[in-house]
């Protein structure tokens, strides 16, 4: 009497793969029959196809959010904002700015005054965000990196000059050299609010590459803004940039700046507010984050559907191959081993699908700009052939998105997607695996009768 213990995984993998995926294609003697057309290649394809959009959505939305965040941080919000009283003397403000610049980790610091106004021209009118910038902003590499000059100058050289955002200039119908009127409100005596009209010559038109920002920028010199804007509605601050706005060093730097402000030199500052970019743009980024979460959830449902299809294919396979399973059971394959074959098969199908889908998803994500450009060109080519007078179609209108989709590949997400795909595949394989383990070898005897 002898017993042979079968505890190894290899035979189960061998059997599972061959059972579900058929004979190796390299076998020249293998006759063509159902093995080669295993439904599990279909299940692999289903999972792959469901994974691809998840990658694209994830990486493109990550890239978009990153691109938009970078533009906000480098061209508008800065990494830290130190709010200052309007009436602070130039001397104190400059001293404070110099002291901040000396702090470790600070790469630039620039004074700015922001307020709102109404810009008008013969071509139209639009609300404007008045940005009174200091010339020191030109030393900021981040600002210069993201600001593209469409025409004219990047900064107004004179107090009566303004640089407009691309879409503000467009809605006003003005170009460089034209004049625009800016209407701001100032508090007069006895609490009366009076409009103040100021005429500016357009010195330049700029773009950050993001319409939301370009739609209302009205850039003037900081001194001009201090004169035009009312202290009760405007906001003066020093915009501070650091080497890494996303790291924890930002909070350390904020503490150092707070320490600086308690020094006697700045005792004439009645109050100050120090905020990080996360505090300032909290609402915007919460909106980005929730939009991304909803998209991922929708895409994840597609993976679950594909996995359920896999479970269905496995169940059908078990039902159709009861005899083969009974043969294995008659040959001494235990019910646990039978179940393991289908669990491993499900896992292998899920893994193959996830890996193939990941490869395709990452590839498409990396080349999404070229792919969209290619599709757009193809559509326009066909449209021109059919109707020569047709206007070109733009698939992703840069007026509403970034002009170039930045792609941010996150390998941790990739591992998470593949891992989740495999786990879901194994979970849906439990039912067919359990079903297979209940197939009795005695069925063979009845089959023969």
């Amino acid at each position: 009497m002898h017993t042979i213990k079968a505890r190894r995984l290899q035979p189960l993998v061998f059997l599972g793969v061959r059972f579900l995926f058929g004979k190796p294609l390299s076998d020249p003697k293998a006759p063509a029959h159902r093995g080669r057309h295993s439904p599990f290649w279909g299940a692999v394809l289903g999972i792959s196809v469901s994974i691809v959009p998840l990658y694209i959505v994830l990486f493109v939305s990550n890239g978009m959010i990153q691109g938009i965040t970078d533009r906000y941080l480098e061209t508008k919000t800065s990494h830290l904002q130190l709010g200052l009283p309007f009436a602070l003397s130039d001397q104190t403000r400059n001293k404070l700015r110099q002291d901040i610049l000396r702090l470790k980790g600070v790469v630039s610091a620039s004074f700015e005054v922001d307020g709102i106004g109404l810009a008008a021209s013969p071509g139209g009118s639009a609300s404007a965000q008045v940005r009174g910038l200091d010339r020191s902003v030109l030393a900021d590499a981040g600002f210069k990196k993201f600001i593209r000059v469409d025409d004219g100058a990047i900064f107004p050289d004179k107090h009566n000059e303004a640089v407009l955002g691309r879409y503000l200039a467009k809605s006003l119908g003005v170009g460089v050299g034209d004049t625009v009127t800016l209407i701001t409100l100032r508090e007069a005596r006895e609490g009366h609010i009076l409009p103040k009209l100021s005429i500016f010559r357009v010195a330049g038109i700029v773009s950050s590459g993001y319409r939301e920002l370009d739609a209302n920028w009205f850039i003037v010199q900081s001194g001009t803004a201090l004169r035009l804007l009312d202290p009760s509605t405007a906001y003066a601050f020093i915009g501070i940039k650091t080497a890494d706005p996303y790291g924890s060093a930002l909070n350390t730097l904020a503490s150092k700046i707070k320490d600086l402000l308690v020094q006697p030199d700045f005792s004439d500052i009645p109050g100050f507010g120090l905020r990080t970019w996360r505090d300032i743009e909290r609402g915007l980024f919460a909106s980005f984050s929730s939009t991304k979460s909803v998209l991922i959830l929708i895409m994840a449902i597609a993976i679950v559907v594909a996995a359920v299809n896999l479970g269905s294919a496995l169940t059908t396979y078990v039902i159709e191959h009861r005899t083969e399973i009974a043969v294995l059971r008659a040959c001494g394959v235990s019910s646990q081993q039978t179940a393991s074959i289908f669990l491993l098969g499900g896992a292998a199908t899920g893994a193959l699908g996830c890996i193939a889908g990941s490869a395709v998803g990452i590839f498409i994500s990396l080349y999404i700009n070229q792919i969209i450009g290619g599709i757009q060109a193809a559509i326009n080519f066909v449209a021109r052939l059919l109707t020569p007078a047709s206007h070109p179609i733009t698939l992703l209108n840069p007026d509403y998105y970034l002009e170039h989709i930045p792609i941010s590949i996150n390998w941790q997400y990739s591992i998470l997607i593949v891992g989740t795909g495999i786990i879901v595949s194994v979970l849906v394989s439990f039912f067919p695996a359990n079903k297979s383990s209940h197939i009795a070898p005695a069925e063979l005897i009845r089959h023969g009768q």
Partner: protein
Amino acid sequence: MNDLIIECRALTKTFSSGAEVLHILERADFSLEKGKICTILGPSGSGKSTFLAILGSLERFDSGSVRVDGYELQTLPEKSLSVFRRSVVGFVFQFHFLLNDFSALENVALPGYMAGLPRKEAWKRAQELLDMVGLIHRSHHYPSQLSGGERQKVAIARALINEPSVVLADEPTGNLDAASSKELRLLLQRLPQVAKTTLVLVTHDSELARIGDTSFLLKEGHFECIR
């Protein structure tokens, strides 16, 4: 009687079909010595295949005792049955039941591989068995590329891969032509010598029945020794 490899006492098996109860085996006794060939004959529906299934632990029985190579099947828990099947018995069915997606060599090697033999050893042993049944040249052919007789020979080789103490064959020539049946008969006849095993053979084929050292007729739930 220490040489008894199979010993059944008061074996009872019934099947229920609605209100009707079919008595397949009624307190039947059966025993067989090691290394012998035993053929079991009987009319259709007499329970020959069911008896074979009970010996191979494919089917449970109602009462009595069955001992095969020291295993008391009535006390064997469900989990141990697969160990019993892979190490004590080998099956040959009327229909070959080979796995279509596996070559002849793989079909033979698989039960050994699943039982824990290293892959190389399982494949080597399978080749030896295919050589023994005269099909070494067909090792890499698939069931669909083999004749009926060849498929049954592969099934016999598969039954022997784990060196079973008992081979249970259920009408192995039932689907074969005369020439193939003869070839298979000769192969089965020398099985106890070459594979050092015991053969229990259920058949309708009178020619095949003659190879048995002993023959039983299963009738009305009882075994009657006819040779």
